[in-house]
């Protein structure tokens, strides 16, 4: 597997990071990652890969779930130098919206003195902001009152697990949702989610 040659590690990473930051600061806000010719393997969206490229380096570990885990792991390893790890230790987890909810309970959620020492999950779903699928109502920091986010291809069991885990605020998991059209949206642990 080869490194992506189109990707600019300085300016693309910066531009994409600002979109992730904007989405994280405004839960439910959909941002679109700029189109780019990537050679992503099956099992990860281009947007998910770009989030990974913007955040991962050799200082952190990641875990990939799903049938194509081996290919995706190698792809991320080659492009970011981050190390694959078990779910219990991973700083970043790349999962599919249809993944088993048990996985979330294995991820680290931080400790009370250091709640940031927790996993960020990058979840690949079918569509964000579309007409079909679950309609999530988000509230909390970053949201003016309430906002709605429609997500197709996200298992309810996964959301239920997320709500259970994030009830322990400030411990918890931060979610980045990605879809095949390059859209991203975030649900940080501070958000209240209803559907």
């Amino acid at each position, binding site marked *: 597997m080869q490194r992506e040659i189109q990707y600019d*590690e*300085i*300016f693309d*990473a*910066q*531009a994409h*990071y*600002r979109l*992730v*930051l*904007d989405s*994280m*600061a*405004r839960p439910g806000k959909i941002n679109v990652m700029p189109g780019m010719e990537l050679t992503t393997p099956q099992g990860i969206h281009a947007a998910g890969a770009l989030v990974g490229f*913007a*955040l*991962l*380096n*050799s*200082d*952190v570990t990641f875990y990939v779930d799903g049938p194509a885990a081996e290919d995706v792991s190698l792809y991320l390893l080659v492009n970011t130098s981050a190390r694959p790890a078990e779910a219990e230790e991973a700083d970043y987890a790349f999962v599919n919206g249809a993944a088993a909810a048990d996985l979330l309970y294995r991820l680290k959620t931080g*400790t*009370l*003195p*250091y*709640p*940031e020492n*927790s996993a*960020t999950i990058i979840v690949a779903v079918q569509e964000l902001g579309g007409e079909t699928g679950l309609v999530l109502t988000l509230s*909390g*920091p*970053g*949201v*003016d*009152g309430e906002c709605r986010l429609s997500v197709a291809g996200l298992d309810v069991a996964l959301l239920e697990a997320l709500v259970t885990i994030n009830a322990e*605020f*400030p411990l918890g998991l*931060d979610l980045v949702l990605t879809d095949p059209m390059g859209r991203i949206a975030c649900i*940080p*642990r*501070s958000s209240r989610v209803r559907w």
Partner: protein
Amino acid sequence: MIENTKYKRSYNFAFIDESTKKEVRRKLLKAVAIPGYQVPYSSPEMPISRGWGTGGLHVTLAIIGREDVFKIIDQGSDASVNACNLREFVQAMTGCKTTYDTTEATLIQTRHRITEEELREDQILVFQVPQPEPLRSVERYEYRTRQMHGEADYAKMWVSLYESYVRHGGIMRGADYPVKVNGRYIMAPSPIPRWDVPNLNQAKTLYLFGAGREKRLYAVPPHTKVEPLEFEDVKFEIEKFDSLCYKTGYRRAFLDELYLDDGSRQYVINDSNFLDKIEQGGEITPFINPYIQQIEL
């Protein structure tokens, strides 16, 4: 020969190396996800001393892009030494356009003030923070304050505010007034005057805080509840000025006290860009909050 332009620059874009930028970026995301919580970070070496705005600079340089329009203020002024030096540095390292105009800027770094003009959704305000730990005055050990934050055990803080009231008849904190963010963490808003504290509450813009010497990052996302600590019967108040700006006659702004050559005192608007705009009759969109609204025009 193929000309190599990639390595012609003596420094990386935005000075900091990409690996460290990624670290700062990751920590900032966690800071945004846990509003008011102080995330430890590496605080890399900069060409200025730690404690002279390096924290703000780390945040700025980690997020700035070529398209950003950069503004930096020091105590409300675009022209003071700290602001000028850091502006020149950021400009030299990124080639970004810089501005004095608050509304034109997309990324604003500040030392100890929030701009008088309201900030928008597409802007980010970066604070330089000298002491990120609001509990430091009541607890000297870091492992203890961390535990207190973890358990939301803020009794000592409340007692210190009460003692201040008993001894002095008021909560004697001028700048850096402690606030509670999202009903959970007590946070130091950096030494902004009390005047600016209500502008942190339910704001439209993202506030990022960097403390370089103390190696901490934290954040207040937009539309987040930020309450100054107060008692039911002893309320938080903003500064009161017994005069108005002598240049513009404007009242609803944070004022500087000036001593003139003849020994008399005058007040003038502290935010230099805001003052310029009023003097030139430009359009202004100031922050509105219940405290400022009580001041008669």
